[in-house]
């Protein structure tokens, strides 16, 4: 209440800049009110479930992307080799498709509804639907400081594709409503800040400080009875402020406790401002941020665009001179296989990062579901009669892994991507009657 200007704490950002490092606690240790060393199995809550979707545009290397067998005997095709070390936690799902993305045209028309399953509109009025990650963000995301992270390693493009669909559909995989995509965060430094500073909330304290002053000034000019009404406003302002304050104090206390008891403290250096010059650094930083966000329970939902549709990324370090999209037109050639392998390695990197983070009985990966997909099977043919899908992680034992599934011959009604999403959401406690074009769950998933 006596928060005057001079007493105000230096901003979090200043601190971060000063130290260049932030420290955060794993999920369990950061639980507020969690007593020191008093954790017993009975009182420990189940670890939270997380969901991340990773997207790469313009298809994979057909012929080198396959899996067979199960469990330890799961055999992975050449493109999936990077997943070998964690294959027991992987499902390779073949044969799924998105009906609304077929027969409309190539590229943006195949991408704008990957995660929503609804028809999208041609022309300059953009219209699609809310995507599965944002549905989850609206539900389970409310329990964390940041409902979701929407990250991208490639700049969005707009304008039109000649199929008459906006290129916005090619550039955004996460849509918050039927009219607007979620803005992509491309800058690792800002993604990092948003996670650990809760930028909006911090800024809110500045707003609240000011409006208290406004109320005080106003209070001097009105009747005493009116002042009582205004006090109601002030009391509310203070309560909201206190809520923000409390979150910070809880975190400080938890950190202190952790330090005292020698519990693990995670540290990550704040990425430098600006965009990393090298795509390898860029993706790696974004994966680290997702991993840290998950581990510290700052967010439970993430979407990461590795390479958009019509991707203009270059991979000179792979010895490939064409850019991503151009190379995809020759998807049986070695160049594109190198690109696919590189992107799958990024997925493997994130999965292994999460798998190295102990949590409860298992690891953070065990309590998560990473979903990797592309908008086409073959970029050379612009073919999306089926699309490649991988899930990694068991959602806290709710999702069986180590399997190779193929739905291609199950009939179109039984191989919908949206049926898969329904299945994932079910396992995360978000049970919808229908989603996108699906009313049924994917059989055998």
């Amino acid at each position, binding site marked *: 209440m006596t928060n005057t200007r001079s007493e105000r704490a230096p*901003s979090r*950002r200043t601190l971060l800049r000063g130290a260049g490092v932030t420290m955060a606690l794993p999920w369990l240790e950061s639980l507020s009110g969690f007593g020191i060393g008093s954790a017993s199995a009975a009182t420990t809550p189940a670890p939270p479930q997380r969901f991340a979707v990773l997207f790469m545009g313009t298809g994979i290397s057909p012929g080198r992307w396959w899996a067979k067998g199960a469990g330890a005997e799961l055999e992975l095709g050449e493109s999936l080799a990077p997943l070998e070390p964690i294959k027991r936690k992987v499902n390779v799902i073949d044969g799924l498709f998105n009906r609304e993305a077929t027969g409309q045209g190539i*590229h943006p028309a195949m991408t704008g509804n990957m995660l929503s399953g609804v028809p999208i509109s041609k*022309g*300059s009025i*953009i219209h699609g639907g809310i995507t599965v990650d944002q549905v989850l963000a609206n539900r389970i995301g409310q329990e964390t400081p940041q409902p979701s992270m929407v990250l991208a390693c*490639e*700049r*969005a*493009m*707009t*304008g*039109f594709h*000649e199929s*008459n669909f*906006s290129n*916005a559909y090619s550039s*955004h995989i996460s849509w918050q409503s039927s*009219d*607007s995509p979620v803005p*992509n965060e*491309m800058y690792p430094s800002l993604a990092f800040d948003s996670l650990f500073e809760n930028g909006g909330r911090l*800024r809110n304290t*500045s*707003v609240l400080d*000011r*409006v208290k002053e*406004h*109320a005080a000034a*106003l209070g001097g000019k*009105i*009747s*005493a*009875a*009116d*002042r*009582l*009404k*205004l*006090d*109601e*406003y002030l*009391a*509310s302002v203070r*309560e*909201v402020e*206190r*809520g923000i304050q409390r979150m910070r104090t809880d975190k400080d206390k938890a950190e202190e406790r952790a330090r005292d008891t020698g519990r693990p403290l995670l540290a990550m250096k704040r990425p430098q401002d*600006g*965009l990393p010059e090298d*795509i390898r650094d*860029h993706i790696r930083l974004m994966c680290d941020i997702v991993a840290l966000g998950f581990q510290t329970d700052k967010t439970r939902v993430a979407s990461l665009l590795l390479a958009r549709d*019509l991707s*203009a990324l*270059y991979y*000179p370090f792979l010895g490939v001179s*064409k*850019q991503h*999209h*151009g190379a995809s037109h020759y998807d049986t050639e070695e160049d594109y296989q190198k690109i696919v392998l590189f992107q799958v390695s990024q997925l493997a990197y994130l999965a292994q990062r999460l798998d190295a983070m102990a949590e409860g009985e298992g690891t953070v990966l065990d309590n998560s579901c990473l979903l990797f997909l592309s908008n086409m099977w073959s970029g050379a043919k612009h073919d999306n009669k089926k699309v490649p899908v991988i899930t990694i992680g068991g959602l806290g034992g709710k999702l069986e892994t180590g399997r190779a599934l193929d739905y291609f011959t199950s009939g179109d009604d039984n191989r919908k991507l949206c049926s898969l999403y329904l299945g994932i959401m079910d396992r995360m406690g978000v049970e919808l009657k229908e989603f996108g074009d699906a009313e049924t769950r994917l059989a055998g998933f």
Partner: protein
Amino acid sequence: MRKRMDRIKATARWACFCLVLVAMAFPSVVRGQGAVRAGLENQFVRTVQPFLKAYCVTCHGSQQPAAQLDLSGFTTMAALMQDGRRWSQMLERVEAQEMPPKGARHPMPQERREAVNWFHAVREREIRRNAGDPGVVLARRLSNSEYNYTIRDLTGVDIRPAREFPVDPANTAGFDNSGETLAMSPTLLRKYLAAAREVASYMYLKEVGFAFAPHPMLVETDRDKFAVHQIIDFYHRQNTDYADYFQTAWRFRHRAALGQPNATLAGLAKQQGVSAKYLETVWSALESKEDAGPLVKLQALWRALPQPRANQPNVERAGCEEMRSYIAEVRKKVEPRFINITAGPIGTAWQPLLIWKNTQYATHRRKFDPRQLQVQGEPLFNQKDVVEPEWDNAFGPGKTILVENEPGDPDLFVPAGERARYEAAWGRFCNVFPDMFYKESRGRNYFKTGKDEGRYLSAGFHNVMGYFRDDQPLYDLLLDKKQQAALDEKWRAMDFVASINIRTYVEFAKLGTRGTRDDFKDGEPEVREIEVEDIVSEAKIRKLEADYLEVAKGGNNVAIQAVKDFFDQANQSIRWVQQARHDAEPSHLQSLYDFAARAYRRPLTPADRADLLSFYREARERYSLDHEGAMREAIVLVLTSPNFCYRAGPIEGSGAIQPRTDLDLASRLSYFLWSSMPDQELLRHAATGDLRKPEVIKAQARRMLQDTRSRALAVEFGGNWLGIRDFEQIGTVDRERFPAFDNELKEAMWEEPILFLLDVFRHNRSILDFVFARDTFVNPTLARHYGMPPGADGAWVRVPDAGRYGRGGLLPMAAFLTKNAPGLRTSPVKRGYWVAKNVLGEQIPPPPAVVPELPSDEAKMDLSLRQMLEQHRANPACAGCHARFDSFGLALEKFDPVGKQRSQDLGGRAVDAQATFPGGVEGEGLEGIRQFIRGHRQNDFVRGFTGKLLAYALGRSLELSDELLIQDIGSKLASDGYRFETVVDSIVTSRQFLNVRGREQLVANKR
């Protein structure tokens, strides 16, 4: 947390407690009349108290009081007086001998008289003692509706951010616009913050100031969409139909015969919705002397247009359309064509070369290809040898479709040796009649446009974005200076708001030709997502230009020049936008001050400005926000400030009753009639200080009623007065049994009373029309529901003789009949209660806790509803109330549960709309109710309506001190035909409305 909440609640409780103190003690501040009061006190102890004890508290005691009315606490006169509303009701019932009820112990007539007289004496005293008291009108936050309307008027966009807020509770008068019920809580405050952020996300910066888009402007896609549609909408607003121009010119020619002898071209242009500037040009061309080329034939067609005929209103149209077709036809024959070019090894699909081609077409729209003229004795134009490079490139612009004319085409015929004269004539024609006024969409293949419809303003690049402006004929021929400036600004906004030039260039720099970098076989100049600032720096642009010029070496000069032009243009426009953004910042801050002043509904003080400026700076420095981010943050502050979201008028003087300040009065008036902020005109009057003059405030009120914003009065006041504010959420109708009840019909039902109310408001109709009118409003959906002929084209129309279809006025409107029916049956109880309570303003106590349930489905009932209600009324405990309203509902039984007329109920029984109204008056159906009201209850309706509108205007429940005003309005109404404006005029010039209780009132009373 809990402690905190308790404190907030305690604050609220304290507020209430103090208010009670205010209400009680206020009279003594005004004037004391000790002797009278002592006499009344005396009488209270002697006669009234024993009366209450003997005849009332047996039922209305503290244990399960009947009708939830507990009189046991009224042991002193002071206690009784605190609850004026309640005892006014009691008085009515006792006086009418409805209380005590049949079967209870009854007072002697003398006792009753004494008690009643005492009540009357107290009431009279109270009414006069404080007449005109402004009453307790608490400071309060905006209601959710007011919040939405105010945001709409503040931003110009109907964002409705309050849709996520919890529902506002209503006060005892039934309105949600008073401090009594509008509380603030931490949860709501969080929503206010979120709403403020949402609104701020719609903001975009302009070259001067800022504005709000119809959607969020955070992602580039949304900015694109906005900028493109601004231009497209502008184009579509221009009339480019030649036939319309010829028709208008024809009207000018025949102005005398058409009864407008003094008409001018400019005047007719305005009337007919065509450009005055272009009409002049067309007129001159049609009336000019021409002896060669296509204008000769066009003029012949023009002269052949028929004379006006009285019985044929559109006699000239066909001829005008023929003229239009002729232009299109000949224009096509001489359209210039431009073969795609290449620059050395760089192909036709490369952006600079496509831009070059687009430019050729854009600059030749008023020109023609003279080679197409067929001059006697000259060889015909032969295009057989044209070789087009890369015509088969799948990613290129495709083959140019050449214009080929038949030999001997009479339109193109030129006599030997006359080429020069004919070329000049064709030039004159084409100069006035361009082949196109603007090109709104463009695909990759220039001539196959069908596929590309909706690719608005596109430059036709493959896969990457890019826009191209091609509207010179529109600009030069149709637009006046002001319109030209407006269109230019919109095009600059493409770059300024949506960064089109920067983003297009960045994509170009990264992707080069047709989305690949094949043009640089070895060594890529840019390979990664580097910072935009770097890519668009002049040095980098020039470097890339040099690289390309190197590659393009050997290409033809036209192509080389196109490359240079492209980079020059890119550099120039990027330099411009960067400078313009920098230069615009001060104007944005100024705009922020203006925005805040409008949001605060008062001029800013120097302290307000300093506050905003320092906050903006803090946002930039402390949170490293860029200029735009900091502007948004400042908007969040403004919208979260109590200066915006609270209505708390400052009090200047120190007396017990003070005039409201002029600004406060402006807000009071605008929130009454618009549920929104005052506009500039109101604020001007406030600044001049003449708003409180009766003639000024009345004139303003009338002006405001005519404004579209007064719809809020119909929705917010009307909706709550009539109990249908939540009609759109109605969920009681069984849509399977009533398939006609779809969303369209539901919306139409809701709209009907709103339009009717607005008609009364705006045409100063009699308020009695609400009950007795024969007219109503329908659209085709509602007309079908009502069995009226559905009008044309989906529009709402007034039906003057709706009485023929059993409609007219509020009573038979489907919205009320449906809202007050529980689904599969009607409810004479609910409908009757609605008539008695909402229309006639009766105060009816709530039903007892245990009431017998009526079956829910008419089709499954053994008896008719009428019979069952008769049984219910046979119980005297129920009859007391039901006798007051059931009859109205029974008279409406010929309307089914969704308000359709019927002769049988759902169980197949014939329905009877005969009713015995209170007092034993017999009547039948709607007409019966109307006759009954006209004969017996008209004053109740007038009083009820007046009281409701007054309570709504004042933002508080009514007190006895308002009684004289209501009576006064009633007598004025009786003498002037019950005009609606009479009510409004009286309210806005009343002491209650113009004044406010003094600022020290509470402190003085709090001891």
